[in-house]
């Protein structure tokens, strides 16, 4: 019984982490219809920057996290302005090729700079170990992940639903032409959103070093997970990807614990079945474009 609850807890933490990693992709892929397979590269960038700051320069872990966000966001903004924006109107094939090229470059570059072994970020001692709550083992680090990611999710929901920027973004996504006719600076909104998504990925990358492992092949290994979150979750709201990540996280942790031999088999099968059953995602709306 307690092992079920512990696994559930770990799964939720894992799912929350996946959500923070992938929700930027939910916007670019789901809303802006841009196939960005290089999303994991931004997460990896954030993770490595945090690792260098904390391990090599002795920054405290909680100061490294915002820096991971900011640096990934800045890199994302620069790349968006320089490269990505030229490709919004291109075919999906071009977008796939371009982003796969970026992934290859990032993998080799990180391998060159940081070496190919897995890295860890030195955690403050307060985050290590676990404590018991009604007999359920709760890892401190995972609890922190849940808290941070939960706060972020609420914040995102608020921004999207309540702020002026949120309504601009929704308008720009629904119908870019009409939105720009109403005086919304659509490219700017997209650029800002893209950068923000990359920042979140960077933060997620920094948080995930402990849980998922961080090495140069991170973008390739987790690409499929991010894509699953977005395609299964659909793109109509932020709730869809959120639920999809929770499901994926719990299923993956449970799968690894109870049927370790099946490995990732379960997840891929479930993904294919869902995609066949509902091509627009579990929580998606019917495609209008």
């Amino acid at each position, binding site marked *: 019984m307690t092992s079920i609850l512990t696994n559930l807890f770990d799964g939720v933490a894992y799912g929350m982490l996946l959500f923070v990693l992938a929700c930027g992709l939910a916007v670019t892929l789901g809303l802006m219809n841009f196939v960005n397979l290089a999303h994991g590269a931004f997460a990896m960038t954030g993770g490595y920057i945090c690792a260098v700051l904390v391990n090599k320069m002795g920054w405290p872990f909680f100061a490294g996290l915002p820096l991971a966000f900011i640096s990934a966001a800045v890199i994302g903004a620069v790349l968006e302005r320089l490269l990505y924006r030229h490709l919004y109107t291109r075919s999906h094939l071009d977008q*796939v090729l371009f982003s796969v090229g970026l992934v290859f470059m990032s993998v080799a570059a990180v391998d060159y700079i940081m070496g190919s072994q897995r890295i860890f970020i030195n955690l403050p001692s307060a985050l290590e170990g676990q404590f018991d709550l009604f007999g359920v083992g709760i890892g401190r680090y995972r609890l922190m992940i849940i808290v941070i990611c939960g706060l972020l999710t609420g914040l995102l929901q608020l921004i999207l639903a309540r702020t002026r920027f949120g309504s601009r973004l929704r308008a720009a996504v629904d119908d870019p032409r009409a939105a720009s006719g109403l005086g919304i600076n659509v490219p700017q909104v997209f650029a800002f959103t893209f950068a923000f998504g990359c920042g979140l990925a960077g933060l997620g990358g920094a948080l995930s070093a402990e849980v998922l492992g961080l090495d140069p092949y991170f973008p390739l290994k987790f690409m499929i997970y991010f894509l699953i979150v977005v395609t299964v979750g659909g793109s109509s709201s932020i709730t869809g990807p959120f639920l999809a990540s929770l499901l994926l996280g719990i299923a993956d942790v449970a799968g690894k614990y109870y049927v370790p031999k099946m490995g990732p088999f379960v997840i891929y099968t479930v993904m294919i079945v869902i995609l066949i059953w509902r091509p627009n995602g579990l929580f998606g709306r019917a495609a209008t474009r």
Partner: protein
Amino acid sequence: MSTPPDVGFYARQHARWHVAEIVFWVAALACAFVFPSRYLIMTDIVRLGLFAMSLDLILGYAGIVSLGHAAFFGVGAYCAGLLALHGIITEPVIALIVAGLAAMVLGFVTSFLVIRGADLTRLMVTLGIALLLEALAERFSDITGGTDGLQGIEMQPILKLFAFDMFGKTGFFYSLIVTFLLFLLARRIVHSPFGLSLRAIRNNPLRASAIGIPVNRRLVAIYTVAAFYAGIAGALFTQTTALASLDVFAFERSADLMLVLVIGGTGYLYGGLIGAVVFRMLQEVFSTITPQYWQFWIGAVLVVIVLVGRGRLHRWVLFLPNLVITRLAGRRAAVAIPESEAS
């Protein structure tokens, strides 16, 4: 009185063998005698070219973007490896065909999943299938040998006549002949009414179905054929290298394949073959510069190709040969830009 020639006239004219094509195949054969010490790399190029041709059939002609074409390559590779390893079918040519058919069955079954949904769903499903197979191969490591791969494959002589030698001479001619035969078949397919209907589907599925083309059935058919081709390429890989390991399913293989095809250009069958030559040369150059980090430069090439634009790039490359041909022959360019990229 001259009536304008109908579509069939143009299609037939397009389907005729051009001088450039004959030159291409003669040159390919000549390579065998010009570089007798490079059989292994040339075999690799031919195999990759065949694999890319398979992707061209679905991507260039039917417009299906696939991120998991390595699935069929892998099935073909393992099938050929297992057949040879357990001595079920020792004759390479028959084993090759059986391996191709195995991949074809998988292609037929999965095609129903792939034709549903738009580009994005297709990407995900093809990628998912390849990953699934990789996970399966890892799971059943007692059959597939796991990460070590199949070991101790010994190939019997082809048709009981030509034994594989250690310099790869037999392997090269074997691959070249198989590729050429399959190329002839592919050429016939894409210039048939069936191939023309595929192009109609690629350009606009809705209109294609409006003029009475059974879109889904055609897509299933070409996807199945392409799977057969990829399976053959995979089987050739196993037979000429006596090797099959988990990385036949790897995502990098599918991604590299796309690069190969994009370098060569889609939608005219030669793209895969030309792309394979250029890709391997690039790889060779990059790995002499940076043995460990050549992937970076491959990635850079991809990014540049996309940013410059595929159509524009091919126009630049073809500018010189076309100029020469127009000057010498005094007629319009013989090497045309593939229509799909003329934008």
